[in-house]
């Protein structure tokens, strides 16, 4: 089982991103391959990225509505108290800057039995998930 990191969604929306082609393939696979899941924390971080860059509320609403058609609802993993607790534990290992969402995404994967994360961020390995791309 694999989980999707936010970097994939960010590359997916930008055709000039060097990761675009593979990111597009991974998002496409969400509706066909049964072993790829999207942590709720990935979606939350993605929304904050849009907000941070001035994408207005109306556009964000439309964007998420359209992602709802690309990502089957049963492929989205919830942010539960167990996930948040595990993320807090992982924070003791994640001493790099901006690790908050990394810990929540990895914790989601670990709590749901994932063995890898689709990401270019190799720091995920330090938290217990193989990083693949």
């Amino acid at each position, binding site marked *: 089982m694999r989980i999707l990191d936010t970097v994939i969604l960010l590359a997916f*929306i*930008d055709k000039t991103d060097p990761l675009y082609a593979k990111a597009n393939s991974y998002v496409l696979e969400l509706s066909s391959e049964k072993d790829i899941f999207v942590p709720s924390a990935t979606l939350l971080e993605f929304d904050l*990225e849009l907000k941070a*860059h001035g*994408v207005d509320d109306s556009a964000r609403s439309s964007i998420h509505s359209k992602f709802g058609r690309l990502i089957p609802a049963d492929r989205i993993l919830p942010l539960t108290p167990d996930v948040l607790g595990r993320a807090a534990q992982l924070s003791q290992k994640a001493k790099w800057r901006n690790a*908050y969402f990394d810990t929540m995404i990895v914790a989601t994967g670990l709590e749901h039995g994932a063995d890898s994360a689709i990401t270019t961020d190799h720091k995920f390995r330090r938290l217990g998930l193989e990083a693949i791309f």
Partner: protein
Amino acid sequence: MEIKQHSRKLTKEEFDEIASEIRTLVGDKMKNHEEGDAERLLFKR
């Protein structure tokens, strides 16, 4: 409680169309994106 389900598999053409619509909505706002932008917004004082 009703949970929305979008389980029908999209055709490649449908996927490409929705993806294109998303990219149009985002426009060029994500240029110069840097890792950690979300957290800087979240934790800014």
